[in-house]
């Protein structure tokens, strides 16, 4: 089964592309470090999106050319960035006021596990080492929509979408939509609601690699992603 999934599933870039299609014109958006950052690359033409980074910048743009980095101008992932016209700097308390105070339209994060009740686990596998949480526990609260981008299953083929998370939680009841390598799923009233799935995959096959019931409301769309 998991071998078969590997041949049809979306790449991370394709998941990011799909998530990017939902970016709304005029939205204020925070993209988590790593995988979610890729979404900005695929921002659709004609949509004006303002990106927030929790270390105190609103309205940043692409990475500078190699050698042109200014290390006072970085994002939360400590990568060099550039500014767009209309950008603003502010301190960390003001920055997290934007986050916690409900001013962001969208935050997109990665995940170890997502539960049908909206719980998210993405900061610790619970296996020891040095714990590090960063801004994740704040980002899951306040944004009007909190989305996750993730492979649908772990590298071992185990479900990442579960009835309840087994890893340490980042936040409770916070995720509103999940973009996976196989499907687009909303979380509504404590349930996974399937919105789109790959055409090559049957509902039953998708359900088989999902750790909680997939409900449907009306038609399930076809998950399409650009060839990248």
């Amino acid at each position, binding site marked *: 089964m998991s071998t078969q999934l590997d041949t049809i599933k979306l790449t991370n870039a394709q998941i990011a592309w799909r998530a990017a299609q939902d970016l709304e014109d005029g939205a204020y958006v925070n993209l988590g470090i790593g995988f979610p950052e890729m979404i900005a690359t695929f921002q659709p033409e004609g949509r004006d999106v303002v990106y927030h980074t929790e270390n105190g910048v609103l309205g940043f743009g692409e990475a500078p050319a190699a050698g042109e980095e200014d290390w006072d101008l970085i994002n939360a992932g400590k990568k060099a960035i550039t500014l767009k016209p209309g950008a603003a700097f502010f301190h960390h308390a*003001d920055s997290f006021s934007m986050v916690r105070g409900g001013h962001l339209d969208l935050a997109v994060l990665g995940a170890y596990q997502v539960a049908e009740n909206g719980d998210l686990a993405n900061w610790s596998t619970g296996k020891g080492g040095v714990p590090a949480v960063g801004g994740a526990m704040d980002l899951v*609260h306040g944004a009007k929509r909190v989305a996750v981008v993730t492979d649908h299953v772990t590298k071992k083929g185990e479900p990442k979408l579960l009835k309840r998370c087994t890893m340490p939680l980042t936040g409770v009841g916070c995720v509103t939509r999940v973009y996976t390598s196989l499907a687009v799923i909303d979380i509504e009233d404590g349930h996974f609601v399937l919105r789109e799935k790959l055409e090559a995959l049957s509902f039953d096959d998708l359900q088989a690699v999902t750790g909680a019931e997939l409900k449907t409301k009306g038609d399930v769309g076809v998950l399409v992603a650009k060839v990248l």
Partner: protein
Amino acid sequence: MDKTVASLQEAVAGIGDGASVMIGGFGGSGAPIELIHALIDAGPKNLTVINNNAGNGHVGLAALIEQGQVAKLICSFPRSADPKVFTDLYLAGKIELELVPQGTLAERIRAGGAGIPAFYTPSSYGTDIAEGKPVAEFDGRPYVQERWLKADFALIKAETGDPMGNLTYRMAARNFNPLMAMAAGTTIAQVSRVVQLGEIDPENVVTPGIFVDRLVTVAEPKQEETLNREGAAYPEVAA
């Protein structure tokens, strides 16, 4: 992205009966007189207004109260040079007052904008103002619990704005304006001028555009103090 609107009327559109409205300013400085007058023209009733004061004379907030549009005022200092309008209504039991110490008022509004539902402050502990509020001790000192304050709308006055809503202020006219911008569902700013995107140095933005929804240009804003010295009233027929 362009948050500018063409008229004061358009700027205050949608503020309906019963709305809660934060209004910036400390006394006359930073008071968005023109937006308040547009709100008088629009005519919604039964408003809850959050401001540091209760207005002066017969313009701005005092005029809004005088028109009978305000059911409740949340403020720190409703006594002013010419407080007659508010005083008469208050003593007649026709307007409700929630009195809040000034620093607590500022912090409650900031908390509303910052997603902090409650906090503890030493201010007002042991006074009549603290009656009925939870008290807790930290490191051996008693503190009063205060709740965040949010509103449906904020009417604020700034100096320079850009189309994304980035704002700067002018001197002590800053006061409550940047805080209220954070704490309202819809924040409406009047600015003396709108400049091109990028013309405000990102280092000098006081209110980032994320907190601002609508922007209207009032090139030469009136000062409450000046209007009152001239004996002005709004609407003018009331003079």
